[in-house]
């Protein structure tokens, strides 16, 4: 841009003295968010550039394509994080987030483009960007489906991005006990960040299958304090791949048999579809769906102590399923243990989450073996999520808007805020 060259001093106007803005933007798009936030103070042009939606997108896409700027987020009531690239060298640190409270456990309902969806209850859900410390509180939405005497069987969420409307969406699926074991009475609602509103959409005609700790809530949908509330959601949140959310579902195939499959919810057209599975030879396994490097994957935990990871190389194409690797180490993974793939590490190894227990697992692709991956400072029992560092904006600043129940916390924050101003 012309403004830049005008800043040249009286010395000879060497064309190479000042870089054009397009090159500055290219260089800046390769930096971590923390550096960029500092560089907002350089000058007005840089400040505007770093906030520009096109730049934010370029920065995000570059991070995703190069598997960089990633953090592991650990959750056990409180939230912790560590940079992916240095997770074995550095310790995890506790995150100071807008829902932090000594009495409530915070869940992570989803992670997308640097936004985490966190909640302390169904009424207290936030979208939060930990890299820029901004959040947005979602409005509450009731469960409209006639609440019968029984509580819902499960409530699961999924967070994703719709590129056609450049919008972030949170999907909530509520499923009820029905007349048969695999009935699928459900209510599905979608929240849109753009319109800041919920809307009910067509029901999900599939029975979602999540075997551990279904959340049981009383009829007024308030969280019961000592319930193992966190267990149900963690197993059930939608896996994001190819702008769609995925869950494992089951259907009856005979009198006492059922088959497992993957259901997808397309964030763009809001249709449900089934994802074709590979031809398994032996189907005595427990299946988890996950995502690795943006590709949908399956983790099959076999009865005879073997874990296979399959990756769908071309989304939706049945023949593109590839068995990426197989682990048979009973000392590390016992049969039917709940194992979930988290992400690729810097050098192509695979990080896996083991039944919500620490340590994590690292599949060494060179040695073709899995080993424990201990993270210092992380809790003993925890759920793991991956989060990219991004500049994706949300409106409320952390530390200024606090919900009423956190008055004590707010006072503390205000004091710190004032101190910073003076100093």
């Amino acid at each position, binding site marked *: 841009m012309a403004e830049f060259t005008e800043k040249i001093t009286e010395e000879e106007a060497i*064309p190479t003295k000042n870089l054009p803005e397009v090159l*500055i933007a290219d*260089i*800046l798009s390769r930096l971590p968010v923390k*550096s960029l936030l500092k560089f907002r*103070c350089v*000058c007005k042009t840089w400040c505007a550039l770093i906030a520009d939606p096109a730049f934010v997108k370029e920065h995000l896409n570059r991070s995703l394509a190069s*598997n960089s700027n990633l953090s592991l987020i650990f959750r056990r009531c409180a939230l912790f994080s560590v940079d992916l690239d240095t997770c074995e060298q550095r310790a995890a640190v506790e995150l100071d987030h807008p829902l932090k409270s000594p009495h409530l456990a915070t869940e992570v309902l989803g992670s997308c483009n640097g936004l985490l969806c966190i909640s302390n209850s169904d009424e207290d859900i936030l979208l939060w960007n930990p890299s820029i410390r901004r959040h947005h509180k979602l409005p509450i939405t009731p469960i409209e489906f006639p609440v019968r005497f029984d509580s819902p069987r499960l409530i699961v969420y999924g967070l994703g991005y719709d590129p056609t409307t450049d919008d972030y969406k949170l999907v909530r699926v509520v499923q009820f006990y029905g007349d048969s074991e695999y009935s699928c009475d459900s209510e599905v609602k979608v929240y849109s960040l753009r319109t800041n509103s919920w809307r009910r959409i067509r029901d999900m005609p599939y029975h979602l299958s999540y075997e551990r700790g279904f959340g049981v809530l009383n009829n007024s949908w308030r969280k019961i304090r000592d319930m193992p509330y966190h267990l149900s959601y963690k197993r059930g949140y939608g896996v994001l791949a190819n702008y769609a959310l995925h869950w494992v579902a089951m259907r009856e195939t005979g009198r006492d048999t059922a088959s497992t499959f993957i259901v997808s919810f397309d964030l763009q057209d809001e249709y449900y579809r089934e994802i074709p599975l590979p031809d398994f030879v032996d189907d005595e396994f427990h299946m988890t769906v996950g995502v690795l490097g943006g590709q949908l994957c399956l983790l099959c935990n076999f009865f005879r102590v073997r874990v296979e990871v399959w990756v769908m*190389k071309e989304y939706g194409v049945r023949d593109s399923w590839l068995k990426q690797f197989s682990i048979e180490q009973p000392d590390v993974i016992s049969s039917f243990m709940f194992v979930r793939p988290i992400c690729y590490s810097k050098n192509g190894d695979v990080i896996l989450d083991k039944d919500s227990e620490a340590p994590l697992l690292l599949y060494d692709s060179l040695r073709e073996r899995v080993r424990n991956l201990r993270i210092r400072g992380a809790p003993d029992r925890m759920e793991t999520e991956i989060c990219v560092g991004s500049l994706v904006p949300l409106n409320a600043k952390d530390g200024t808007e606090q919900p009423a129940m956190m008055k004590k916390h707010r006072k503390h924050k205000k004091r710190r805020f004032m101190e*910073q101003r003076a100093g």
Partner: protein
Amino acid sequence: MASPKVIVLRTCDGETFEVDESVVYVSETIKNMIEDGCGDGVIPLPNVSSKIFPKVIEYCKKHVSDFESLKKTSNGDEKEKDKDDDSSKKGKEAVPDVEEDAEEKARVEELKEWETTYMDIDQQVLFDLLQAANYLNIKGLLLMAAEKAASMIRGKTPEQIRETFNIKNDFTPEEYEEVRRENAWAFE
């Protein structure tokens, strides 16, 4: 083609260089100019100095063989070069031929070493290189230089950045205070 064609180029300060056509073809800009029929005369490069041009040619010479195979396939996009782990991370294909793999690994290693030496340059040369690579449209060189520039400025303070890029602080004191305060934790 029998003998390699030699192209004559003139930098902005009047010096001329004679370079093999296959070497300058690594620059998309020059390639387009040649294809438009300018290859027989002297090609002017108004935005490139004689100081930096040899450095650029050094890169092009090293990457001619890369380019030869690239010419056959479609134009590569903004993706990182294959020296990065990116492609292997995205989806490991079924086990490749072991011999081919070892050869490939050695080639990649050698290229990495060459690039480290090549990029051992000071800031002014780096900026000149960035501008030249941008004007001459040499994607691989631009990428390498941009990465180097990014790693160089990553830990700097705003004051140091202004010095590096010769930028004036145009915030009012109040504006500066506000921006600084909003992002205070980034300075910790």
